[in-house]
């Protein structure tokens, strides 16, 4: 293990709010830890629970879905639908022996550059506290064997 | 307890409010009220006898003429126009009040005001305290003599009466010749040092007009005519109003209201104080207060500031005070200038004989002064002076109330020993050699 744990976090960012908010964070130079890998999706409600599970199974230390604030979805209520799936995902994760805290869903608007940075900072801190994904070790071993 | 309902919509009667509206330009906008209440939340007489300006107007609009015409509140309203100052519809509530006063049978109107009006009609001096021409001349000459003899540097001081062609025509509140003649000395000294070409007149010099407060148009006009004639008879260019509020308004507005032809200009003495200090004619200094650090605040008289010259004169007033007491020793009360609260004694309230109500109206003013922490409240108006002095005594304050002329002379080191009636112990000897 490296001296300092630098977690890898997968972020699913909705095209209309969160991704745009991430861009604004850049324009205003709001600094945050470089651990999140952004994946742009059309809507937070597009993210299949399998994707979240798969990412964590493959060794991601955290997964965060970011979408528009409730009531402001570009597609009426996609974010509410995404929200509704959260509990199911958490149950599955627990079954797999992964702390459900490794998965989060948050709302960031396209004006909230500063908040975007804070959300990522907080989530990264949270993951750092949790430590590496327990499945990661197995996975890394497998990887080496291959 | 539910009141008896007021009946509306039955038989059309002519309303008092409508009659008043016919007399006012744009009807005083009296109908335009949308009852927002801004007037009342800034009225010093709000709540006295459960009345406020909005309610008064509302009752008038609903035709509750009996109630409003009998209400003593017409004498509690000081017509200070603070309501109108912010009213989004610029409704002339003070004029409604004025006409209610007018509508009272003359003999029922407050004795204090009526007596002063009647007294002023007895002599051409127009003095509400009944000072005759001879008495007036005697007091002035006697005091002038005394100053010339006693006060160093004022050997040449003049206090002329009926000096034809003098530039300034000065008026004087009757309170001074009658009760405290020494208060005239600082004023004369100022005029002397400024090198002003001024005169008093034997007629029409009295700086008061209680007939206006009484709602007695006829006699208000009569007095203004006498005074205007006195100025023009002497051929003076400028009528100067001393530290008095309502007289400035009564004379200035009276000339217009009664369409009285005249040849002179009108100025407040505050204009002149400020000008003479700027021109270096009055060599004032705040040096005396550098270590004493005695703090002063000022009452902006409604009649002079809000109702006449507004913020520009209020700024002049502050310039004079700051020059005299030192910038750092002046503390403004809030609100101030054109938005200042009336002292609560204006427009005859002081003389109307409702002391408890009047003090209720004045409580805001008292609190304002106390909040400044000032040792002195400067009042360039006799009405304000009396009311604020009374408030101090009644509510047990610890400030003194003083005219501006006293402080100007103090700051120039020319204030005599017996010209300090309104100074406190802290200043009673300052500047005396």
């Amino acid at each position, binding site marked *: 293990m490296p001296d300092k744990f630098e977690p890898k976090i*997968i972020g699913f960012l909705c095209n209309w*709010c969160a991704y*745009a908010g991430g*861009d604004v*964070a*850049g*324009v205003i130079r709001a*600094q*945050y*830890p*470089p*651990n999140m890998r*952004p*994946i742009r*999706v*059309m*809507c937070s409600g*597009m993210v*299949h629970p399998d*994707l979240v599970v798969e*990412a964590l199974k*493959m060794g*991601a230390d955290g997964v965060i879905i970011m979408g*528009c604030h409730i009531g402001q979805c570009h*597609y009426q209520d996609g974010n509410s*639908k*995404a929200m509704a799936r959260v509990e199911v995902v958490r149950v599955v994760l627990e079954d797999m022996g992964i702390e459900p805290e490794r998965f989060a869903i948050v709302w960031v*608007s*396209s*004006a*909230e550059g*500063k908040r975007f940075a804070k959300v990522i900072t907080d989530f990264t801190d949270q993951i750092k506290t949790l430590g590496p994904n327990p499945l990661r070790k197995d996975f890394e071993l497998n*990887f080496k064997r291959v | 307890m539910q009141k008896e*309902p007021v009946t*509306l*919509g039955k*038989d059309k009667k002519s309303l008092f409010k409508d009659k008043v509206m016919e007399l006012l330009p744009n009807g005083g906008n009296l109908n335009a*009220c*949308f*009852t927002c209440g801004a*007037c*009342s*939340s800034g009225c010093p007489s*709000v*709540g006295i006898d*459960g009345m406020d300006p*909005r*309610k008064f107007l*509302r*009752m008038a609009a*609903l035709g*509750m003429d009996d109630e409003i015409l009998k209400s003593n509140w017409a004498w509690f309203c000081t017509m200070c126009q*603070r309501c109108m100052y912010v009213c*989004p*519809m*610029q409704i002339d509530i003070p004029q409604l009040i004025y006409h209610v006063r007018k509508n009272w049978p003359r003999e029922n109107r407050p004795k204090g005001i009526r007596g002063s009006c009647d007294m002023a009609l007895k002599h051409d001096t127009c003095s509400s305290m009944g000072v005759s021409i001879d008495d007036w001349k005697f007091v002035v000459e006697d005091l002038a003599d005394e100053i010339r003899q006693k006060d160093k540097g004022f050997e040449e001081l003049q206090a002329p009466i009926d000096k034809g062609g003098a530039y300034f025509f000065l008026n004087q509140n009757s309170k001074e010749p009658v009760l405290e003649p020494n208060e005239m000395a600082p004023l004369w000294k100022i005029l002397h040092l400024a090198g002003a070409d001024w005169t008093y007149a034997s007629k029409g010099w009295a700086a008061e007009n209680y007939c206006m407060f009484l709602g007695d148009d006829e006699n208000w006009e009569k007095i203004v005519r006498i005074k205007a004639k006195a100025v023009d008879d002497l051929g003076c260019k400028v009528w100067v109003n001393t530290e008095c509020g309502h007289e400035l308004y009564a004379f200035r507005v009276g000339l217009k209201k009664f369409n009285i032809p005249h040849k002179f200009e009108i100025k407040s003495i505050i204009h002149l104080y400020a000008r003479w200090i700027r021109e270096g004619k009055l060599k004032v200094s705040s040096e005396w207060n550098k270590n004493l650090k005695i703090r002063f605040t000022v009452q902006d008289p409604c009649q002079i500031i809000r109702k006449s010259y507004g913020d520009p004169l209020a700024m002049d007033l502050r310039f004079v005070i700051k020059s005299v007491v030192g910038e750092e020793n002046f503390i403004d009360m*809030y*609100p101030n*200038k*054109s938005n200042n609260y009336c002292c609560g004694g204006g427009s005859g309230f002081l003389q109307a004989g409702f002391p408890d109500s009047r003090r209720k109206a004045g409580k805001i003013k008292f609190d304002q002064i106390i909040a400044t922490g000032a040792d002195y409240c400067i009042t360039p108006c006799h009405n304000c002076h009396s009311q604020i002095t009374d408030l101090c005594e009644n509510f047990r304050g610890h400030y003194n109330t003083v005219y501006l002329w006293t402080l100007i002379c103090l700051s120039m080191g020319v204030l005599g020993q017996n010209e300090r009636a309104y100074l406190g112990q802290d200043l009673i000897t300052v500047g005396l050699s």
Partner: protein
Amino acid sequence: MIEFRVNKMAELLDVHRNTITNWIKSGKLKAAPSVAKRYIVSKEELTELFREEGIPAELIEKLKIANGIKSNISENFKDIKEFVEIKKKTLPKKPIGSVMVVGGGITGIQAGLDLADSGYYVHIVEKSSAVGGVMPKIDKTFPTDDCAMCIVSPKLVKCVRHFNINLLTLSEVVGVSGDVGNFTVKIKKNPRYIDINKCISCGICSQKCPKKVDDEFNEGLSRRKAAYIKFPQAVPLKYSIDGANCIYLTRNKCRACEKFCPTGAINFDEQEEILNYNVGAIILAPGLTTYDPSGLDFYNYKNMPDVVTNLEFERLLSASGPCFGHLKRPSDNKEPGKIAWIQCVGSRNINRCDNGYCSSVCCSVAIKQAITSSHHCHGENGCRTIFYNEIRAHGKELEKYYENARDMGIRFLKAMPHSIEPAKDDSGAIIRYMTEDGSIFNENFDMVVLSVGMEVSPEIRKISDIFKINVDKYGFAATESINPVESSRPGVFVAGTFTGPKAIPKSVIDASAAACEVAKILIEAKDTKTHEKIYPEELVADHAEPRTGVFICSCGINIADVIDVSELSDYAKKLPGVVYVENNLFTCSADTQALISGKIKEFNLNRIVVAACSPLTHEILFQETLKEAGINPYLIEMANIRNQNAWVHQNQPELATQKAKDQLCMAVTKVSKNYPLFTQSVPVHQKALVIGGGIAGMSAALSLADQRYDTFLIERDNRLGGNAWNLERTNKGEAVRPILEYFIENVENHPQIKVLKNARLKSFAGSVGNFVSEVESNGIVHTVDYGVCVIATGAGESIPDEYMFGEDRRVMTQLQFEREMKLNPTLSYKAKSIVFIQCVGSRDSKRPYCSRVCCAHSIKNAIKLKEANPLLDIFILHRDIRTFGLQEELYKKARDLGIIFIRYYLKNKPTVKREGNELYVNIFDPISQQPLRIYTDYIVLATAIEPDQNEELSQLLKYYVNSEGFINEAHPNLAPVELAVEGFFVAGMCNYPKLIDESILQAKAAASRASLILSKKDMQLDAIKSFVTEKCDGCALCVDVCPFKAIKFEEIGDNRDKHKIITVDNALCKGCGLCVATCPKGGIEVHGFTLEQLKSQVHAALNTTEALN
């Protein structure tokens, strides 16, 4: 049933045509009007009449028998040639097909987009350096509390990229000549001093600029540099130098920006330019300014830091404002506990300003600000207090918004304070106020917000002068109800707050309505000035074998300073499928585009990855490059290593480089899974259906037909006109009848409008561009196909059940009373007293909304009566007089005339009593604290307006209604005339109670939006759509989850192999992927975002073996 024309019937029976008409009028011939001046009568009726008149019965057989006939009337419009010729004469000759829009706020942008999308070239003139106007300054919009920036910014971006929009920033109009159809507009373009083509918006000029000035975007609450962007999301996102403050331009030294600019974009030699544009029409949307309260000494705005205006407060609340969304008060940067709002500052005021009108939006703004700032509220009573005189929550859903605010504990005090006084230590304020019962309170607040209104600035007045259009006494552009976007000068249209104070939805409606009017007069020149880009045919390449080219941008030093781009390039070369890697200084520059094109050909590339800035701003640019090189535009991926990496990890270069590698790997992996996508096109029925023949419906139909689209107008009643028949005058005082007659005549005679009366919609099928319905009218069923539909089904007066309505005939509804006034002209002399009661059935628990039009309606009638007879006593009993906007003048006039207004509360409603024959109303007057008994001759009830509960229609069309039955628009602020179902639009009272002019406006706006669909024969659909895979087993879980009803459940196969699967209607699908995430089997996917593609990105990010294979 038998259908006939009057003249044909007259000919047949050998009588004068008037005889037939008289028979119909008298009821002798019981015929009902059908379409196009035809009538329908039953055979029995006709036989009876013929027998009575002694006409041979066999003649009946000669009349067309209509019974049971199904007609397809779609192709059956009149010959329009003649009509077009007539129309042409009234239209400008050979108009120019381009338009000048003055003002780049939401109104100008919306108007510009509507026109550019429907075949006209648009110049937008904006005074400042970026478009957007006031909206970007606003934190949130009411009543949805949407982030204002989020909803406006896509429109701004679209505008700047639009092929047929010429955006002129830092520009102003200095002159205009010519006439409708052919104007010449002279524009002064002020220098930006930064070359817009070279600027990469890195912001280094601003960082290096030593000159700080007040930031007007933050209302002076913060400082910006002289080299600046207006706001971080500015469009165009290009820096500019403020010539008035730049040290070099004012004092001839410095030039720091020039020294450090990595692209050499600074150009101090730039000069002011004068440009002339020829346009066919002009839309003025210059907006308004807010009232400056500095002159109100009693509010102490100038002296007290914690007294701010509502616009300043927006900036304090905004995430992009000086406090980054964490509200702090200016005096000490502490979070304020108690905040007060003071309404009507600079509005409804003729003492301190001449703004006699109501600014219309400030009540809702204050409510919104109180709600959105109350997250910081700590539960203390009155910690959010709104001092008001009347709360004017008159827009849709705003009454509920207001009620909700009350429930949240926001305190509403009907008390206008006289003054704001400073509190101790120069922080916060003291407010003294008097409640209605006369009690006086002194209260401390930490902050005070002045709800300042809107006004016309001298600068805006100048625009009216330049264009020589008439304005009202306040400087608002003067218009008439019949066409509220038409100025006094032909060809010059006006929109937005320029015609009066209004909120965003009404401005957006104005914009589309103005666009509609322009399209009508420039119809001859449609598509003459617009351009369409021609691309080479796409290369047919073997997409299975990726040959990826990677272009890594240094962005000057923006990226390269943090990320090791050469290491990144080396890394890229090792990634699978990558055959070419290049590092550019500026990948977005024009020369790099040419270079990419060349490399594509040279290395036979079939996939491109650009590692640079954000796809949101630049993907379209690179897609263009691909298209020009003959590659499908969906074969590109961007790695956002600037905004979401270099800029936000400035102090961690190593980790940033590591992240950039992952981002690049993710993009390369994903692009290898990409496949060509094609936009689909569907043919459009260029016809419209309008449901409802009231003013709104007729206005929509005319607006569409005048743009040469065949339009069906169906009306349930046997005559057109709807509610307007019951109204006498508009609020502006114009007679309604001539307006109504104008509409009816034009609609009935328009060759491209087919009117069906007594009509009902019987069926509905299809999707946008291709709808088909059956309409039954007078027993005939017509088949109608259409591309768009405008719903304008109206609303009506509700029936009161209180105040002795129905018990005493002197108690009547507003419309009944208006009829009474008409029948009884001496009413005002005979009556002594009339009482109007407002909010009868509105704003209560049953109908928690404001019916909006009743205040002005009652006042209008009251004024008419009082003017006729000043001795008549009139009382208006109300809960808040809501004469919003310029209607406030009516309220003022009514008061001046001596009409008495008395407020009541829901808990203390007036009561109506009768003693003998005497009718009276008891009410408590809160101001005089006095019970009143008002004897009266009439009691007029301003009853609630109720939407038409059209179950049949809503079942059929499946539109959404709110809880009170008003049809919901797709988005209250930015899609105020669209329905959620694409191709459907809404106008008039069925949406919410509206005034006549507002209904006309909304109808025109709906027509404008609808014509965007109708303007082209084929409609291009986005390529990002969902598609069904072979894994679908027909479980149908996805059907309900689709917000756009794009997924249908169908049975396929023959008897032996019958099974159900789903199908996607591409015209309805918006590609959101909610279905994908719902499907347990991978039976449905979205192009461009397939599970495989997304998973490949996950794997790449985690550097798993799968990713590297």
